[in-house]
């Protein structure tokens, strides 16, 4: 042990607090040598840690000792503190993002070279559950599953992928052959072909898709309600569309998800990391040829389990909630739309 030790001790053993609740404890200063303590204060605040750059919020410091105090060797002094917790953000422990609260005690001692010492301890505030706890928890009784028996929880099937690959390769080969024959510079032709294929894939193909959807159906209604809700509530998703031509409808899918997003900027590197912290998907299978003029409705209820993390937004770290609605057709990539929602903390 060094000649002096500073320690934050919470009155509550589990260090777990609700929002707007009083946190109390003491700062303990132990000395093994005679010294003068000029000042003791605490500050408290939240900080992120994980794969993103650190974001933080700090409360006002609280003075515990403003006048110099003489301490004898072997003496222990305790300085009580109390403060009311703010109303957020909640403690969150995820995979790439964590939000934690800390109380830091500082002491300014009358000693040379290293007069300022500190001790930091974490506490839990208005906590959310981790992903593991969420997945192991039974469905809450208040949450009713969708009334439509055809709507089942589960991951929606993926879009057909092979047509995309063959389409892309076909475009590329055609372009390379075209430019090669006219220019006779194969490396240049390949690069040009790749560039044009990229343009076609990124801009032309989506435009063709949009035009195809516009020709074949019209979205009459798309509502996600409410836009703001609490853990334990349900999101209602209503999608209604009318066919304009004959069309093969494969399935509808609605996915409610929370995603951790962490941005790391350091040195010459900037990376964005994403991790799905919460996901609930429902699928309604149709597999039916529809005639023109059919009005189709898809209503789905998606539960936000109690204890699910609240929306969190800071400079480099976010928890983003959204509902993705998708209509899938035969052969063609499906139509989809992602709508952000906000989950508030209880």
């Amino acid at each position, binding site marked *: 042990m060094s000649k002096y030790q500073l320690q934050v001790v919470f009155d509550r053993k589990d260090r777990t607090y609700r929002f707007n609740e009083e946190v109390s404890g003491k700062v303990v200063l132990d000395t093994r040598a005679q010294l003068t303590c000029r000042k003791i204060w605490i500050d408290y605040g939240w900080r992120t840690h994980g794969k993103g750059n*650190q974001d933080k919020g700090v409360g006002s410091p609280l003075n515990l000792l403003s006048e110099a105090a003489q301490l004898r060797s072997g003496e222990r002094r305790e300085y009580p503190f109390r403060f009311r917790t703010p109303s957020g953000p909640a403690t969150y422990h995820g995979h790439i993002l964590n939000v934690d609260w800390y109380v830091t005690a500082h002491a300014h001692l009358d000693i040379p070279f290293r007069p300022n010492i500190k001790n930091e301890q974490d506490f839990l505030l208005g906590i959310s559950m981790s992903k593991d706890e969420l997945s192991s928890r039974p469905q809450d009784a208040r949450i009713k599953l969708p009334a439509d028996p055809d709507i089942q929880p589960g991951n929606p099937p993926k879009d057909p992928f092979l047509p995309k690959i063959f389409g892309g390769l076909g475009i590329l080969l055609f372009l390379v052959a075209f430019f090669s024959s006219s220019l006779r510079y194969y490396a240049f032709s390949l690069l040009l072909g790749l560039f044009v294929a990229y343009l076609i894939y990124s801009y032309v193909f989506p435009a063709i898709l949009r035009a195809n959807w516009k020709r074949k159906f019209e979205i009459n209604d798309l509502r996600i309600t409410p836009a703001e809700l609490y853990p334990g509530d349900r999101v209602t998703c209503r999608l209604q569309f009318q066919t304009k031509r004959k069309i093969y409808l494969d399935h509808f899918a609605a996915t409610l998800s929370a995603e951790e997003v962490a941005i790391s900027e350091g040195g010459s590197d900037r990376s964005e990391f994403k991790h799905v912290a919460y996901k609930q998907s429902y699928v309604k299978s149709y597999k039916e040829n529809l005639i023109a003029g059919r009005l189709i409705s898809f209503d789905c209820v998606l539960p936000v389990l109690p204890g699910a993390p609240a929306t969190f937004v800071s400079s480099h770290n976010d928890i983003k909630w959204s509902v993705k609605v998708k209509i899938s057709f035969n052969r063609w990539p499906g139509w989809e739309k992602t709508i952000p929602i906000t989950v508030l903390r209880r």
Partner: protein
Amino acid sequence: MTNMRLAYAHLNLRWNPFGVISIEDAPQLAVVEVEEFVDRLQRPGFALQFLGEPGRGKTTHLLALREYFPQAPYLHFREKAEIPQAPLLFLDDTQWLPASLRKRIFSRQSSFVIGTLIDHSKELIKAGMQHTSVCLKGVTVDHLGLIIKRRIEWARRGPGPVPGVPESEITRLIQEYNGDTRAILSRLYEEFQALEGITDVKISIAGSV
């Protein structure tokens, strides 16, 4: 409320040691030797450039050296930044600056600590500056071992055992990631996330037995 434990308490840690570190914590965690340049940088007309591929520790060296000059501005050029007048400037990622702007900066009566992917030696000589280049390449087992140990101690929650990374695993990591420290630390982040208790990390590398 749910019964939740403090972060990483099961590992006797307070956070994942291999997450992103703040600019304030970087100097205490840096395993670098930069003291020899401190004296020379106190006078104008000297440039020290740290050269290397991404993830080799250029920024770490800059921040460690800046501990000796806390008043000196640190500028990172991924974003557009105003360049203040100062006797010593820390310039990171100068390869993003147009050569004409670099020429104007280097002609100032200042000293510079530079982090860059490309060598500015010719430009510095043209500007009449004395300069030293430090090429950062790879990492040794001992050096990486020290970085890892320092990170774990920094994250320590209390006395007692904490997870470790044996030397054999450090060797495998260096081979797998070709000495890219940033990539190795990122891998260790995932390894520590997966730990269920206090134990040594065992790296599984694709294709190895």
